[in-house]
């Protein structure tokens, strides 16, 4: 087969260009740490990387929501703890008033103490987080009860606000104050405590017994509410670990698809550089030989 000047040159040039292209590709990989720069580099990997990156973003958002929900639940839990303490204190005062040997001054002091626990409970359920009331249900811009006097009826609504901490789990970050402080009773705990204070002041034993029983039922409702909050807090803790693990997995998947193996890229860069040198050298060597050089 005849090998002509142009065919030899064209083939050599094609080889040089191919070597240069491979060298450039490896250079880009090493410089950017990435093997994917445009979709045609590896269409399915690029598509997969978009999915993995999106999953990482979703998990980051759930993480932020989880952290925020946890903070709110801690505040809720703390407020419920204070309510429980106040109820317990009120029960102690009620028990102390359940005797006929007290002086009017002593009864008055106990009544004032019971009213104090009523005001403490009002303070606890008026807790807000970032300007949102936690015991108003979904009406979180509205305080659950007005101070008065007298303390108003419940001003929130019967709903609760939930947030999604994962794709499959939501947690309530507000409470229905009415359900906690009144439930199915005719009077809420503020009315109960006000009546109890009156009964303690007047020595109304029947009234004190009624109030004591009502406080017992209020105690059950509040502890039940706190148990739910506790369960959510506990679930959040394990969800957070799971989210972190999934986040790492998503990042690993994205990296596997998108990132260059630097050791392989550097090694490939060296090989590509050598291949280009060889191609250039071959062209130079082949063109040094010419019959014209030997003619006298």
């Amino acid at each position, binding site marked *: 087969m005849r*090998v002509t000047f142009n065919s030899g040159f064209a083939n050599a040039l094609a080889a040089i260009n191919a070597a240069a292209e491979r060298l450039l590709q490896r250079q880009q990989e090493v410089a950017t740490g990435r093997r994917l720069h445009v979709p045609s580099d590896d269409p399915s990997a690029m*598509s997969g990387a978009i999915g993995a990156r*999106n999953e990482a973003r979703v998990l980051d958002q759930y993480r*932020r929501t989880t952290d925020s929900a946890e903070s709110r639940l801690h505040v809720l839990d703390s407020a419920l703890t204070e309510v429980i303490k106040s109820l317990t204190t009120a029960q102690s005062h009620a028990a102390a008033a359940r005797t006929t040997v007290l002086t009017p001054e002593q009864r008055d002091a106990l009544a004032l103490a019971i009213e104090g626990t009523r005001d403490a409970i009002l303070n606890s359920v008026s807790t807000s987080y970032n300007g949102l009331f936690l015991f108003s249900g979904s009406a979180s811009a509205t305080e659950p009860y007005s101070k008065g006097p007298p303390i108003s009826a419940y001003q929130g*609504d019967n709903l609760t606000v939930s947030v999604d901490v994962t794709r499959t789990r939501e947690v309530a970050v507000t409470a229905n104050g009415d359900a906690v402080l009144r439930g199915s009773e005719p009077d809420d705990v503020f009315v109960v405590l006000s009546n109890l204070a009156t009964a303690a002041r007047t020595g109304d034993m029947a009234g004190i017994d009624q109030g004591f029983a009502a406080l017992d039922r209020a105690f059950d409702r509040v502890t039940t509410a706190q148990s739910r909050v506790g369960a959510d807090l506990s679930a959040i803790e394990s969800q957070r670990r799971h989210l972190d693990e999934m986040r790492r997995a998503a990042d690993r998947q994205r990296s596997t698809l998108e990132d260059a193996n630097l050791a392989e890229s550097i090694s490939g860069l060296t090989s590509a550089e050598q291949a280009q040198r060889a191609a250039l050298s071959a062209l130079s060597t082949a063109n040094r030989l010419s019959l014209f050089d030997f003619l006298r």
Partner: protein
Amino acid sequence: MPGLFSMLSAAARALEAQRFGLDVTGQNVANVNTPGYARRVVDLAAVPPVDRVSAGGGVEVLGTRALRDRMYDRQLWTELPGEHLQQSVADGLGVVEIALGPPDDGLDKDLAALFDAFARLADTPTSATARHEVIASAEGLVSAFRDTAGRLSAARRDADVRIRGAVADINQLVTRIAELNDAISAIGLTGRSLSLQDEQREAVKTLAAIVDVQTIDRADGGVDVSFARGRPLVVGEHAYQVSVTSTPPSGFATVLSEGIDVTATIAGGRLGGDVQVRDTLIPAYATRLDTLAYTLATEVNALHGTGFDLNGTAGGAFFQPPGGVAGAASSLSVDNALAGDPGLVAAAGVASPGDNQVARALADLRDARVLGGGTTTLLQGWAELVFVVGTDGSAAQAAARSSGEVVQQIETLRDGVSGISLDEEAAMMMRFQRAYEANARFFTVIDESLQVLLGLGR
């Protein structure tokens, strides 16, 4: 004596023949880099003897020939359109790939940002910051859609400009081929028309790179060229110009041959590639993008309409309702009233500002399968678009490389017949040089013999 004189003439003719051989060799060396130049060879023939006492009349030059294998030319004209079509598609899609944005900064980032903003709104539905963030994210997403749609449109316009340029190039080439056909026909298929034939073949080759052509060689040395399923370009010395007309509403070029629209029938060459990019590939991508925008706007609006804003008023449209799928990406915009007052974002499911049910539902739209008849999420839809563009680009690059190798092989084979080997020409030069020297020496011997003969009479 007549014998010696005729020998002198024969020697002179031989010198001329060897000189001509050197001339042709020099011509080959000079044109080693001339595109389309086919190696010339000298045809020499021995002059027969005129009588029984003569050995012969020396040598005569019959002419020069160009070494050319028309089969390789035809194969090249057949393969070139495919290579250039794929390369043109690959180049066009390279621009489209850039239009989609870098891997970590594409439209998926803005989509995710909007859903993240809805999630943060669900966390604090009465927060002014969260509401502003929703509007800002929505406007960022609108910009991303519009920018991407704009870049796809620009890529189509670029392809259109190239189509118009290609048509102009075709017309120049067919005019020149027709002129060459005429000139070759006038001169005939002799050594004087070889350079014209070279130029003619090269012009057809250049034309084949632009558009898929069919050729018929004429007996007079001309070549008839047609394209697009038999539409004439060159018939003998007649050139049939191709024209373009701008077709509303896009204003894109329609390619006409004698008034007939042939755009859709152009199947090869860079013109065919640009037509494919402009009229088939990019519109398909734009439709996917428009479907994404339309579905996003429709689904978000549907959910938003079930909610209540900070004032307890029922939610209106979040995005300006798109008129239809076509153009949805380039016309996407946030509702004007909403953009001016984030309090109108309907995050609540009931008329209570602290409720967040609709905000949660909007955030969950991220995972809702609202595309592809309920099989694909919005983000998956974007990933699919990226995948399709990448696959098309990768396939075109691979096909261009593969076709390019075939073309290179054919050119190597063709060059094996028509190409110049400098070493071969050096050897030929030596051959003609030595022959010239020998004939010059013979001429000297005959001259001396004549002088001896003429000296006998004194």
